[in-house]
């Protein structure tokens, strides 16, 4: 299956050696949204989270401290850029690398908070992400071994052999775990309870968009 059938008319390519970035309306939309959100993250200050205090009538204000703010903002911007890269890359291995980077950054963004439940959730998600990096990279390697290429432009023109199907299934498992969507979101949901709205939004956004892009990539490889 070609790019045009899936994402609309090919608007252009950016050839960087054997890595060819390409833009269709679909990729452009995802890329632009991610860059827009990354810009907003760079400009935003976090909210003050109001929580009820146990056994009294007072409220507790949960704020993000200045040092934590700088660290989390930096990681969030890198996460936004990595996700944006994953939206337009035309190389299967680059996609898996961006995916792994996004997984690591998602943990990093909440690693400085002091809420135990959030850290526990990040730890559990980290375990799943680590385990799923094997099928993620393994799947891409099997596709490379079976076809001799990682270029999506070339893969989209090739018929899918049983080994390619096997590699794609492994990749799908890896993507589901690395991005922490259903059924793995149970390990990730608690991460969102912490303060710092501009930073946690990129955790959710990167996971969702990578799944959307993965749909396109798997269809390109398989059909």
């Amino acid at each position, binding site marked *: 299956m070609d790019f045009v059938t899936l994402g609309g008319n090919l608007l252009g390519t950016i050839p960087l050696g054997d890595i060819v970035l390409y833009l269709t309306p679909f990729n452009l*939309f995802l890329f632009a949204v991610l860059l827009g959100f990354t810009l907003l993250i760079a400009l935003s*200050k976090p909210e003050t*989270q109001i929580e009820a205090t146990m056994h009294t009538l007072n409220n507790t204000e949960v704020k993000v401290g200045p040092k934590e703010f700088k660290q989390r903002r930096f990681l969030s911007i890198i996460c936004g850029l990595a996700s944006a890269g994953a939206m337009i890359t035309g190389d299967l291995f680059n996609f898996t690398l961006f995916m792994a980077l996004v997984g690591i950054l998602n943990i990093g963004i909440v690693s400085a908070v002091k809420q135990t439940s959030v850290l526990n959730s990040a730890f559990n998600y980290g375990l799943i992400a680590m385990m799923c990096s094997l099928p993620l990279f393994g799947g891409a390697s099997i596709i490379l071994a079976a076809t001799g290429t990682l270029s999506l432009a070339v893969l989209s023109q090739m018929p899918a052999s049983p080994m390619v199907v096997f590699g794609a299934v492994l990749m799908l498992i890896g993507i589901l775990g690395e991005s922490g969507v259903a059924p793995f979101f149970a390990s*990730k949901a608690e991460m969102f309870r912490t303060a710092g*709205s501009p930073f946690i939004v990129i955790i959710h956004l990167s996971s969702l968009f990578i799944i959307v892009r993965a749909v*396109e990539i798997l269809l390109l490889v398989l059909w």
Partner: protein
Amino acid sequence: MNLMADILINVIIAFLAGSLLLGLHRKVMARVQKRPGPPIVQHLIHSLKFFFKETAIPKTVSKVFYIGIVFILALVWIVGVIAGPVAHDSLLILFGVYAVYKIVEHNSGSSSGSPYGKLSCVRAVLSAATELPLFAAIVFVYLITGTMNIGEIIAYQSAHGPLVFTIPLAALMFFMLIITKSPYSPFAITKDKALISGFETEHFGFLRGFMLFSESIAWYVMLWVFLTIFFGPLNAVGYLIGMIVISFVTGFINATTPILSPNHSVMTQITIGAICFFGTVLMIFTGVVA
């Protein structure tokens, strides 16, 4: 017709039709529950009224996102109108639009600093369970028609008949998404009344106006996509009847079904999604679907 005029007209139609359909939905719910209910135009009047109300911004908010997110919400559904009714472009773009909508639900809740918004934000992550059936439904449409382009899917249906007869379980999966996103749905865990208005709780004045404006367009676009890819090709009257019927059916379902707890909601959606997914796979492999 000039493209910009086409977009503008379609956005206005989407807003007006979506508002009236949501008004009808509310009216149906009220009548099922033996209440007179508000007039059908009430949702439209509310949406317009909020644009002229005083806007207050809580001091706890993350201001850039708190304000920016409502404009993103409006913008993203306008993109939905462009990719769908105007350009008949790729279904994947609409999948992307829906993904951004989930993000907006998430962020408008968390950026306010309110505990109600925050809980709604966490539930938005849990309610991602609806995306997998949506993804599966889109892939099944692709497998049958061989294309993601809405225009080509319509052409396929005009030659082979509506897809709802070919892959009814995939249509059911998509319909579950529509139920989930309808007001007062049993799966609407992000807007549970225990959370006041969920992620919308802390947005007032013209910010709420933008949210209602976007909700109307979202409802119209979702119904349009469902009717187009499963019941196409339809003319304007067909769309009108289809949208009224779906609003009526979802109104009836929501009026008679209590909201589920987050865990039950997710498990129900995943169970229905899994049954429909494996059912459709079975239909394809046993040759029921040509």
